[in-house]
C-alpha cells in the first residue's frame, strides 16, 4: 500500500454517475448519505466533480449515450482511482440486458473494483460494499 492509498482509504470522495438507471440505486445512494445510515461517519462523502473524486460509483445499465462519457470520466478521475459497480444493472445490466439501447457491460468499459449487487442494494449492503472497497485498497501492495 502506497502513501496515496493509505490517505485515500481514510476519506473516500465518491462521484456518483447514473448511466441510464431506474433511479432506485441513486435514491438509495443519497439515502446512505442522510442521517439514518450516514456514510459520512466512515469518511465517505459525495463530491460534485469527478476531478475531486477517488471513487467512481456507477449505477445503471450503461446506455449507449453514456458509454463514451463513462470512459472520459474515468480518464478524468485522478489516479489511484477506483470504480464501484452499483446494483444489478451496474454489475450485469440486469433486466435491461436485451435492450437495443444498452451498450457494453460496465466492466468491459472501465476496470471495476467492487460489485454491489441488488435491485436496489439495501443501504446495509452499500455500507458493506464500501467497507470491502476500503479493505481492497489497504491490502494492495
Amino acid at each position, binding site marked *: 500500500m502506497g502513501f496515496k492509498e493509505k490517505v485515500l482509504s481514510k476519506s473516500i470522495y465518491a462521484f456518483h454517475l447514473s448511466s*441510464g*438507471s431506474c433511479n*432506485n440505486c441513486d435514491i*438509495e445512494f443519497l*439515502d446512505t448519505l442522510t442521517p439514518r445510515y450516514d456514510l459520512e461517519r466512515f469518511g465517505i462523502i459525495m463530491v460534485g466533480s469527478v476531478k475531486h473524486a477517488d471513487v467512481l460509483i456507477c449505477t445503471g445499465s450503461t446506455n449507449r449515450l453514456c458509454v463514451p462519457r463513462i470512459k472520459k470520466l474515468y480518464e478524468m478521475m485522478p489516479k489511484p482511482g477506483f470504480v464501484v459497480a452499483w446494483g444489478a444493472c451496474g454489475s450485469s445490466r440486469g433486466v435491461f440486458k436485451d*435492450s437495443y439501447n*444498452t451498450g457494453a457491460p460496465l466492466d468491459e468499459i472501465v476496470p471495476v473494483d467492487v460489485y454491489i449487487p441488488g435491485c436496489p442494494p439495501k443501504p446495509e449492503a452499500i455500507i458493506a460494499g464500501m467497507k470491502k472497497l476500503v479493505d481492497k485498497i489497504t491490502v494492495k501492495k
Partner: protein
Amino acid sequence: MSHKAHIPIGPYHPLQEEPEFYKLVVEGEKVVDVDVRIGWNHRGIEKLSEAKTFDQSIFIVERICGICSSSHPITCVQALEDLGGIKVPDRALYIRSIVQELERLHSHMLWAGLAGHFLGYNTVFMWGWKYREPICDIMETVTGNRQNYAMLKVGGVRRDIEKEHVPYILTRLDEFTRHLDMLRGAVLDDPVLHARLKGVGVLTKERAIDYAALGPTARASGVDIDVRRDHPYAAYDRVKWKVITQPEGDVFAKMVVRIMEMYESVSIIRQCLDKMPAGPIDSNPKDIPPGEGIGQAEAPRGECFHYIKSDGSNSPVRHKVRAPTYMNFPTFRETVIGQTVSDATIILAAIDPCYCCTERMLIVDKDDKDLFDIQELIRLSQEKTLKLKEKMGFK
C-alpha cells in the same frame, strides 16, 4: 445589444440523481429561453416489454422509475385487467391502495427534501430523507423490499398484509405524522420561504390546461383533477378523502399541495387498513385474450397511462407508456422565462421531474462560451435565501 449567455445544466448533476440536460439562455440575471434534450435514460422499455411475457413485463415496467415502482405496475396490470375483463378480489384492491399511498408518501417526502436543498435549507434535506425512513420500513415489512416492491400481479397482489403487521404499520404512521406536523410547521410558516417562493414560477390555470399539466403541478394551479377520484381504481371510491388544490400556481402552492396530500395519504392508508375485508388476494387468471386495454393511475407526479395490445399470445404486441413528467415538463419553459437564474433550479424542482419516466436525450452545443455549472446555480440559489434572511433580520 444585450448579451445572451447559455447555461448548460447537466447531464451529470451532482444532486439530481439522474442524467438530464437542459440549456438556459440568460440575459444578465434573467432567463429568456430554455431548451430541453431528452433520452439520457432511454432503456427501450416498451420494446423490452414486447419481448417478455405478460407476467415478466410487470417487472420491466416496475423498473421504469424507482420512485414510481408501484404506479407503473398498477397501471400495467389495470390495462391487462381491462383487456381481459379480469375481476380483482376486494382485499387485493385495498392492498393496492395502501401500497400506492405509501409510495406517494415517500415520493413527496423525498421531494420536500430535495426542494429544501435547492433553497439552501440543507436541514430540510436531511429531515425529509430521515422522516421518509418509517415509510421505507413499512414497505420492507409489507413487501420485502425498500424500493421495487413487486407487489402487483394481474388479478390481484403477490403478498398479503398480515394481521400482525397492522399494529406495526399504524405505529410507524403515527411516527411519520408527528414528523410531518413538525416539517409542515417549519416549512409553511417560515417567512423566508414565503418571500422566496411566493409568486415565483407562476403557472396560471389557463396555461396549465393548455399544457395538459397533471398531478400536483396542475392541482397547484387550481385545476381540480385527480385520477383517483375521476376514474376510481383500487379502493379509492370506498374511502373518504379530498383532492387538494391551490389557486396560486406558484412554487409555494406546489409545496403546499404536496405537503397537504401527504396528510390525505396517511388518512387513506388508515381507512384502508381499517376497512380491509378478509378473503383471497388473487383471482388467478389463466390467460390474456386478444384485444386492447388501457390503464390509468395517479402516480405521485400525476396521471400515468399504459396501453397494451394483445394478439392472444403470451406477450404484448404493443405496450405504450406515458409518464406524468412527459406532460409536466413543458410547463417548466412556461414558468421559468422571465425569472432570475437563481430561481431556475427551484422552479424546475417544483414540477418534481422524473427523467427515468420520461427518457431523455442529449446533444451538447460545443459553441457555448459562458458556462455555469449546476454547483454554481445551487450556490446562487442558496445565496439568495441567505440575502433574504439577512434582509428580514434572521441569522
